[in-house]
């Protein structure tokens, strides 16, 4: 397997410029002869599809929701980073680059991250031009705030709805191209396979979720922008239908999967309240700017929050990390909450919760200011829990939120399968072992607006693309494979609903491959997941037919892939004998309970190659080389 990252030579600051100059161009009149399939209409897919169409390519775009505007990116609340240095507080491209590398616990590629920081400023310009209503200061200029463990204010935001507004900007650009006939949009359409011809990705097979029709689509290149896989845990902050199907099926067709065990558990979510729970709601991290996190100092303290005196409270983040305090990075804040709860100091009925308290901020700034800053979040919290956070502290607990792992890509964002490009959360490239707040939106739009449109041109200009037809054996074979799987799922006639099996998988993953991982636990998971998979294939119930809107069939298909993918995650977590970022191996920690990296043996990307249904995947390693930063122990003390 070729894992050459194709990083351009030369100094870090000049790589992207130089690379763009070296890339082959396609004459404007010829671009329309190339067809590109963009799967996904979130920030990554939406921006790529519209930009490629503006450049003149023929584009088909797919999403499983009823409209491209509803991609999961819509849910992002907090903001988007950019190295604009508008507040004049010392930010720079290099600082954003350094923060991202360090925040990722030195497990990402320097060149990719630097480019991300470089193009970040253009993203804001582009979004403003589209009419994205970013927050403004009274002078009319763009407002910034500090977010998610950054010591500079580089985060742009639109109330608590930044993802929504950025996505609507993207959706508007996409809609314009659809209206002009430059993009054909396929909503309620799910990718179920990738088609490889002569070693190149040349198309996909989809199922129309309304009619059930299975169809081949032929193209010159395929772009996956299908988001992350946090829903492997069943309960997560992600939208219900997020899934791993597109990337996992691509993996089965030859694309390496990188660092699948790197998942981010977000510290500030509303705790689980019962078995019926379908998702965990994120409370924006911006709340940590003014809220103070604490638990009772005494184990098993059953009193209500307001009955517990100041000196009986443990503001554990402020105690352990005096310089970052409540703004400690996500992985650290999450783990500390788990530690407190595991020690019996958790709050709420389940004991799986900690307080996020605004009493001091309200005292200092007044309720009005707090309402102005967080009114909608407080309102949402009250709606869900029935508690009023102006009077009692919020209760929060960590929840699966983001997946840094994804399909392996090179500097051009091309996977190890030629012609298959992967952008946004679906790839692995920029966040290492832990993502900083407000950086996913930045990466999705960087990939889609400013990176992929260049690099895909180079591929199309230089690859030898033979003529391919949808009736070739590769396409008919893949189509039949999809139809066969549908038939198989419908014929099991078992007793268990897809959701009940998914919940069981989620519990296994949360316990064994969640916030704290151990060798023994992972080994156990590797035994029970295959058994659960067996159970699924023998006992799942999928009613109805394949030729109608069938929600059980959709769920079962996605779950089938999760049941294989979960094993890959555990395998990767087991193999990575160190702690780094969101991957915390309890057997690798410092005396103070911090993550202990092992740079000598694990300073690499783990890229897994699929070998067949009952065979073990093969691990390939792409070494990470750091020429511009010094590897340091992350300290937020």
């Amino acid at each position, binding site marked *: 397997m070729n894992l050459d990252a194709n990083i351009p030579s030369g100094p870090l600051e000049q790589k992207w410029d130089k690379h763009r100059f070296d890339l082959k161009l396609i004459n404007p009149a010829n671009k329309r002869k190339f067809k590109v399939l963009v799967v996904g209409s979130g920030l990554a897919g939406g921006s790529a599809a519209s930009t490629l169409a503006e450049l003149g390519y023929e584009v088909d775009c797919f999403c499983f929701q009823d*409209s491209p505007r509803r991609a999961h990116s819509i849910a992002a609340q907090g903001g988007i980073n950019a190295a604009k240095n508008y507040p004049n507080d010392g930010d720079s491209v290099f600082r954003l680059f350094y923060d991202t590398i360090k925040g990722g616990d030195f497990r990402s590629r320097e060149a990719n991250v630097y480019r991300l920081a470089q193009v970040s400023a253009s993203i804001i310009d582009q*979004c403003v031009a589209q009419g994205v*209503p970013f*927050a403004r200061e009274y002078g009319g200029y763009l407002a910034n705030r500090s977010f998610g463990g950054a010591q500079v204010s580089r985060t742009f935001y639109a109330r608590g709805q930044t993802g929504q507004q950025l996505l609507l900007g993207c959706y508007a650009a996409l809609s314009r191209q659809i209206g002009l006939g430059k993009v054909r949009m396929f909503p309620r359409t799910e990718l179920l396979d990738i088609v490889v011809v002569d070693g190149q990705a040349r198309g996909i097979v989809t199922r129309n979720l309304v009619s059930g029709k299975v169809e081949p689509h032929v193209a010159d290149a395929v772009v996956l922008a299908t988001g992350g896989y946090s829903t492997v845990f069943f309960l997560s902050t992600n939208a219900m239908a997020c899934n791993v199907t597109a990337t996992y099926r691509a993996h089965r067709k030859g694309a390496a999967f990188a660092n699948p065990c790197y998942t981010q558990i977000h510290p500030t979510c509303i705790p689980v309240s019962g078995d019926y729970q379908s998702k965990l709601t994120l409370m924006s991290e911006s709340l940590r700017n003014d809220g103070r996190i604490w638990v009772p100092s005494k184990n098993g303290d059953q009193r209500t929050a307001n009955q517990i005196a100041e000196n009986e409270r443990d503001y554990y983040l402020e105690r352990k990390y005096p310089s970052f305090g409540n703004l400690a990075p996500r992985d650290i804040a999450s783990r500390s909450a788990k530690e407190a709860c595991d020690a019996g100091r958790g709050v709420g009925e389940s004991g799986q919760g900690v307080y996020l308290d605004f009493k001091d901020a309200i005292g200092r700034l007044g309720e009005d200011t707090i309402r102005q800053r967080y009114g909608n979040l407080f309102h949402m919290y009250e709606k869900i829990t029935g508690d009023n956070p102006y009077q009692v502290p919020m209760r929060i607990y960590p929840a699966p939120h983001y997946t840094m792992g994804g399909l392996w890509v090179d500097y051009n964002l091309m996977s190890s399968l030629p012609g298959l490009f992967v952008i946004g959360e679906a790839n692995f490239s920029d966040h290492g072992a832990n993502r900083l707040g407000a950086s996913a939106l930045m990466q999705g739009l960087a990939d889609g607006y400013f990176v992929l449109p260049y690099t895909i041109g180079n591929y199309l200009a230089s690859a030898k693309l033979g003529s391919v037809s949808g009736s070739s054996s590769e396409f008919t074979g893949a189509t039949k494979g999809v139809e066969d799987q549908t038939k198989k799922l419908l014929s099991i006639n078992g007793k268990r609903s897809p959701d009940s099996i998914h919940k069981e998988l989620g519990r296994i993953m949360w316990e064994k491959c969640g916030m704290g991982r151990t060798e023994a636990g992972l080994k156990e998971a590797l035994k029970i997941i295959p058994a659960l998979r067996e159970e699924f294939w023998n006992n799942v119930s999928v009613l109805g037919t394949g030729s109608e809107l069938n929600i059980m069939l959709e769920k079962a298909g996605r779950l089938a892939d999760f049941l294989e993918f979960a094993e890959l995650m555990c395998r990767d977590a087991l193999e990575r004998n160190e702690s780094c970022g969101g991957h915390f191996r309890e057997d690798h920690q410092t005396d103070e309970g911090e993550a202990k990296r092992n740079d000598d043996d694990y300073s690499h990307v783990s890229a897994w190659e699929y070998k067949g249904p009952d065979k073990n995947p093969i691990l390939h390693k792409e070494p990470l080389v750091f020429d511009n930063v010094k590897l340091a122990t992350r300290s937020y003390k």
Partner: protein
Amino acid sequence: MNLNLRVWRQSNATDPGKLVDYPAPDISEHMSFLEMLDVVNERLIVKDEQPIAFDHDCREGICGMCSLMINGIAHGPEKGTTVCQLHMRHFKDGDTLVIEPWRARAFPVVRDLVVDRSSFDRIMQVGGFVSANTGNAPDGNAIPISKVEADLAMDAAACIGCGACVASCKNASAMLFVGAKVSQFLHLPQGHPERKSRASNMVAAMDHEGFGNCTNQYECEAVCPKEISVSVISELNREYTRATLTSGSD
């Protein structure tokens, strides 16, 4: 609590459909409305009955996918709330809940409670944008915009495109939806070069899709989960008049 559900079941677009009764015992008041439906569905599956199809995704009140009429009210009784964020504590033991899909000519039913809202997308395709190709943009701070105007733009931009406004309007008018987009761009200088074509094209598309006229009932504002104000409708009316009465295109 124990509830009685009367749910619209329709197996496809051509099936006439009907209301079917389902008892829903042992519902926790902490569940969201959709979690309650999940529980009902799991019980149906155990009995080998097809679960009730409904649209949903984010369950955070932001994607605009969920879309249910509960006892004749779009998104149910809680003001400013999507049905995914509505919790069962707002209902009482013994309540009968009639659950139906959005009803409008321009939103045909796909199955059960799922409708086709692609007409909204088609309206956006003719004018719900600023034509700014990637790469064209000046520095973000080169266009100062007063905080007041930016906030007004944001108020309108908060629309999630769920279609509750249409579902609750006796004329099935889409004026609140279209008004929200026109208003957003009206309050931003970036929107001005195309303001005429935007207003006239979007209104024409809205008529073409079969949405009705606005007769100032304001049911739309009452159910809008993002509490978009009907003032966007007056803005749309003004913009439309301006576009038709003044000469020349943008």
